[in-house]
């Protein structure tokens, strides 16, 4: 009986907190403006429930008294750690083959032909996937290019892939994936590029596995970044959003030096270069915006 009563009291308290923590329209607008300025992620009114729930979770986890208290924390906390945790809550961090493949389409239909046509181009085309996590992105790039770029056989293409986490890199190099990772790949491509190991596991073909240069390192460490020069396209999706402003600037400056003149950066769909740097020129390929380093030798 006492246990039941305790549970009931706890549930009532949670319900009260939930009521209290539901953001007013003004608080929601204030939060959304702040969050957009910091991350580039914009929530519309219809996402209010989603936002409310996650903020409530963080208010409870941080023992804040309510929204005002919590907002003060994320706005002024010197190390920005709680803001990072909130970003984690507000974003979906998963990887699978052909994720946001409209960016790959822009690559093969717009970017690669443009690079290959440059008078100064003497190959190979260098593409860098960072962070590559468990490898879905660099392998997707390889498959998409081989399948969709009709000039793929005419040029040498080098795909490099890096991550700070040695454990996920080991998985990437092993190249073994489950159905969830492969869900967006057409069955014909699964059959062409993978070998079934058992009912739940598929291994990417040895040629593709051997064709990617995997390396472990941290993008904010200059010695690691110096290894990458003359890169034509950097795929850096959904990483910078988790960095503080200083690290974002450091990384973007380092990417600038890694890229060849006229090279491109591809960010995640909710990320925007304009909040981080004015060095790059936005270029539109269909509905996709990539960011280009100026091509002329500058004085």
């Amino acid at each position, binding site marked *: 009986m006492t246990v039941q009563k305790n549970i009931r009291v706890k549930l009532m308290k949670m319900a009260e907190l939930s009521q209290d923590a539901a*953001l*007013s329209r*003004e*608080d929601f*607008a*204030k939060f959304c*403006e*702040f969050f957009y*300025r910091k991350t580039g992620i914009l929530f519309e009114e219809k996402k209010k429930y989603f936002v409310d729930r996650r903020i409530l979770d963080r208010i409870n986890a941080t023992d804040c008294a309510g*929204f*005002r208290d919590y907002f*003060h924390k994320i*706005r*002024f*906390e*010197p190390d*920005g750690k709680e803001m990072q945790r909130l970003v984690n809550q507000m974003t979906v961090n998963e990887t699978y083959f052909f994720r946001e493949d409209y960016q790959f389409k822009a690559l093969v239909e717009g970017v690669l032909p443009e690079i290959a046509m440059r008078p100064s181009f003497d190959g*190979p085309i260098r593409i860098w996937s960072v962070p590559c996590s468990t490898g879905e992105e660099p392998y997707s790039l*390889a498959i998409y*290019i*081989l399948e969709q770029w009709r000039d*793929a*056989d*005419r*040029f*040498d*293409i*080098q*795909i*490099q892939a890096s991550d700070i986490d040695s454990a996920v890199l080991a998985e990437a190099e092993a190249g073994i994936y489950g159905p969830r990772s492969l869900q967006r790949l057409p069955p014909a491509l699964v059959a062409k590029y993978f070998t079934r190991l058992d009912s739940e596991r598929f291994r990417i073909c040895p*040629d*593709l596995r*051997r*064709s*990617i*240069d995997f390396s472990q390192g941290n993008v904010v460490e*200059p010695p690691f970044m*110096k*290894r*990458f*020069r003359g890169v034509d396209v950097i795929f850096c999706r959904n990483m910078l959003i988790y960095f503080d*402003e*200083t690290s974002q*600037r*450091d990384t973007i*400056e380092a990417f*600038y*030096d890694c890229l060849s003149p006229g090279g491109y950066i591809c960010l995640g769909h909710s990320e925007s270069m304009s909040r981080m*740097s*004015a*060095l790059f020129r936005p270029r539109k390929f269909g509905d996709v915006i990539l960011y280009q380093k*100026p091509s002329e*030798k*500058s*004085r």
Partner: protein
Amino acid sequence: MALIKADTLPVALVPSPAVTRSDLIGQLRSSDAADRRAAVRGLAAFPDCAGVLYENLTVEQNNSVRSLIFVELINHKSSAVAGDLLCLLASEDANLRGGAIEALQEMPDEMAPHVEAMLVDPDSDVRIGVVAILAALRHPKVPNWLQGVIERDPHVNVCAAAIDALAEVGEPQSIPALAALARRFHDVAFVQFAVDAARRRILGR
């Protein structure tokens, strides 16, 4: 298959000959922006580099080199660096002003000792620049500084900038100061509108 692996050591891994600080300072005069960026990166390895980087910031015209200097000044932040960057708020060059504001927003503890003196600078454009820094500064005294602006600054544009910033970080204690400001600029419609909007944001209703 069109895919190849790198089979040579990347050029950047080939050890470069030792470069001295004075070599790098000389390299800052190169006619190639890429060389000057490399010099900035090289100089950033020296702990006492901030002075020479700042001096070059004021003469450098290329935005990519300027941008890197700002980043390295943030990495070498100190009260002295903040003091130097604050001088740029009076610059005629909008790119330098904007770069300084963004850099100073990332050094709250180093910026703090300068705030009160800068908020009484005779140039209202400089004071607006300081308020723009406060608008994104992670420092607990920001609401107090902004409240001081709306209580004391004689220039309506400086106060208007402070109202916008207070709308985000203000506490209910700021409401009387906002009301007093509305009375002080009773004939400026924008101030009435902005104060009303800020009051709603602060109270959350």
